[in-house]
């Protein structure tokens, strides 16, 4: 079950909210844990067993490390084993190489634990924090298990530090207004997924079905724009839905994306894309490595290398690695060339160009396809053909609207407008807009009951 399904929205969500608010405050956290277990169980009992075992193993490791920290070698040994276990498990489940190993443990070939990538990052980060003595929060089992299994977080993050999660959990102040905020964020995410991402996906599929060897330039650019927008709307849509549901339970988790696609610098793109994951990489990989290397060139290489790891984390293939290297290199070059401010429009255009060009690597299944696609984007074939014009004619409105929606223009307008009438007017009609979008999304999910295209298995 995913957030964008009628069963979740009209069944699981209202029932779990009801139960949560009916029970006394003391019982709310166990109830949340139980509800999360049911959510995992509905994805599959095997999934529940997997996530439960994963949580228990990491819990055991964290407790052992805390008990023996600074006293004897035991802490280091458990730490090493725990981190290796987490790293190995993400490789085992995200690549096809380990199918025999998986089946040895009784997992069928098709089994994929959704959210394993986020769970593994959370687990590794927590073990490092505990080992370094930075996770002095309450290590009760309910807290720890919720950190892993809290259902609004399990599918698409955000990757939070254990300490901040526990702080959030303990400072919950659920009230009606928060539910309103939460449902607004939820509907925003739902609309991103159901209206924008699913439509753009059809455009991308139409382009991908063509032979890349004689693709026209215009087709290639339309395709890659559709892909990047679709990726953004899928990832941020699902993550918004999760965060919105979290708000309904009084958990104010931070947003994962902050309108990254049309930033004025690649550096800003990098800082606004999957914010917590990028921060995780900086905190647990880049900084410790920097501490050992003072040389400037060495540090640059590390910086690009960490971006390569981040890219690899997306796809677990060479292509993701190349995407990461490109983005990392682009940021490095940018910081060398332009230290000052650049004009907004130029900046937006060149950032978008870099994002689209490197996006060819995320979009393609293998490096050869991606290189051919890049050739099409520089115009090896014709400039435009009938197919491209057909796509422009059919999708131009969708593309323009979704591009606008992926910029921060509207939000900035609202902020700048201060306390004037426009803002008030928007505020007053916003409940109706939310409801209207919600009705539209419900109708668009009605045929199959859900909207499940994930684009990437994370």
């Amino acid at each position, binding site marked *: 079950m995913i957030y964008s399904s009628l069963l979740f929205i*009209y069944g699981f969500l*209202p029932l779990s909210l009801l139960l949560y608010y009916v029970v006394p405050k003391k019982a709310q956290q166990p109830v949340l844990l139980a509800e999360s277990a049911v959510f995992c169980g509905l*994805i599959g009992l095997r999934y529940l067993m997997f996530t439960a075992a994963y949580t228990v193993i990491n819990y055991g490791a964290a407790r052992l490390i805390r008990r023996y920290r600074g006293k004897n070698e035991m802490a280091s040994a458990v730490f090493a084993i725990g981190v290796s276990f987490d790293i190995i498990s993400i490789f085992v489940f995200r690549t096809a190489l380990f199918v025999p190993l998986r089946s040895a443990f009784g997992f069928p070939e098709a089994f994929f634990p959704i959210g394993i990538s986020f769970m593994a990052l959370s687990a590794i980060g927590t073990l490092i924090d505990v080992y370094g003595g930075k996770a002095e929060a309450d290590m009760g089992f309910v807290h720890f298990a919720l950190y892993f299994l809290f259902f609004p977080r399990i599918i698409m993050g955000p990757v939070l530090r254990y300490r901040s999660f526990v702080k959030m959990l303990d400072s919950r102040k659920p009230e009606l207004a928060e539910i*309103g905020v939460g*449902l607004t964020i939820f509907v925003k995410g739902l609309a991103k997924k159901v209206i924008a991402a699913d439509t753009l996906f059809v455009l991308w599929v*139409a382009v991908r079905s063509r032979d890349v060897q004689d693709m026209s330039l215009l087709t290639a650019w339309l395709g890659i724009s559709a892909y990047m927008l679709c990726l953004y709307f899928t990832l941020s849509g699902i993550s918004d839905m999760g965060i919105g549901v979290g708000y309904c339970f009084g958990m104010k988790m931070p947003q994962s994306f902050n309108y990254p696609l049309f930033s004025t610098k690649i550096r800003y793109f990098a800082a606004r894309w999957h914010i917590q994951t990028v921060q995780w990489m900086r905190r647990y990989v880049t900084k410790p490595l920097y501490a050992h290397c003072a040389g400037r060139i060495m540090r640059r290489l590390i910086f690009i290398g960490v971006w390569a790891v981040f890219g690899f984390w997306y796809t677990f293939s060479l292509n993701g690695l190349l995407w990461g290297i490109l983005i990392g290199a682009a940021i490095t070059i940018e910081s060398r060339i332009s230290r000052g401010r650049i004009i907004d429009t130029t900046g937006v255009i060149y950032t978008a160009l870099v994002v689209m060009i490197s996006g060819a690597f995320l979009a393609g299944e293998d490096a050869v396809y991606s290189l051919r696609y890049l050739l099409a984007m520089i115009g090896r074939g014709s400039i435009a053909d009938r197919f491209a014009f057909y796509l422009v004619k059919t999708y131009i409105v969708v593309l323009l609207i979704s591009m606008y929606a992926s910029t921060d223009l509207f939000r900035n307008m609202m902020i700048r407008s201060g306390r004037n009438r426009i803002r008030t007017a928007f*505020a007053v009609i916003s409940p109706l807009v939310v409801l209207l979008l*919600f009705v539209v999304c419900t109708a668009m999910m009605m045929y199959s009951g859900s909207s499940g295209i994930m684009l990437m298995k994370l």
Partner: protein
Amino acid sequence: MTKLINKITAVLMLAFISVFMLYSVFDSKKNRSSEENRELSKRPGLSASSLLDGSYAEDLVSYNADHFPLRSRWLRLNSKLREEIGDGIINGVYVADDMLLDADTSRRASSGSSAAEINRFARDHSGAVYVVAVPTSSGVYGERLPEYLDDYRESRQISDFYDRLNKDIKRIDAYNILKMLNDNYIYYRSDTKWTSYGAYCVYRTVIQKLGFLPTTFDKYSIRHVTSDFRGNLYNRSQCSSVKPDIMDFYYYNDGEEVLSCTGIYNSGKIVAKRIYDDKQLDSDYVYSAYLGESVPLLKIKTSVNNERKLLVIKDSYADCFIPFLTQHYSEIDVLTPELLDGPASKFVDFDSYEQTLFLFGIENLSDSSIFASLNH
């Protein structure tokens, strides 16, 4: 102020969600949707394996959607919305200006293994075998589809299929006949199938190959039985912007008569049937007015006095085609292999027919398993 508005949003949304949740709990559950012309999914049964791999919840998602309150209204809204955004493909159906076309390319698989089954049939039995593969409306009106969907043309699929048939099997090129006439009302706007008129145009050629002179068009009196027919493409897309279709019955008043028409079910039960069954016009599946509700075997006896027997092996495309044949044979047996549960030889002796006609829509030929019962 902001807080108040957030509270309003919360109340509005929670009310909307709870109303539909309660409505769907207490709503009476139907088994069939007449709008979509299909059986709705049943409440999934609990089993260890379905819980283990999560298919229980997946079934529950589609059960929930199938029985969602006001589902048909939601679907109509869905189709209106999807016409506006994107490329106008709703659930695999393309909305062209005035007709719906099947845009689901996954159905256009190869029909090579069906050809092999027909070859086997022709080799094993003595009579002459004739084959007609009828294109769907997307084949005949392919130029109206978005260009990238028309890449795998049905004409090529049909000629591939014909090329795989043995030399002694006679094939009839329905595609080019229909393509030439595509200014006429030969295909339904809301269905993949041909109209009676489309079937008549192909009948003229088929019957000559079978060795008779066709009945000319002016001999028929045509009755418009309904102008409110919504076909399978409508069922899938729920797109009501395209006009409903007209269904015609063709009567040849001075011609030969149908003396008896009996349907035989798998159980052996025999029922009286009619070539045109008016009663079905009020049912959920209006198209079954042709030949009535489908049966595995239909035996037609006519007043033609030539002792000629024809076996037709067919799918639903033939339903409006069979009535034209009744002017030429004293006996026609119509076998729908899709509906058989056992070997066909239980019902018919294939060697007793001097002519066998296979008449199928190309969309139904990619699945060769329907022929398994013939060559058992």
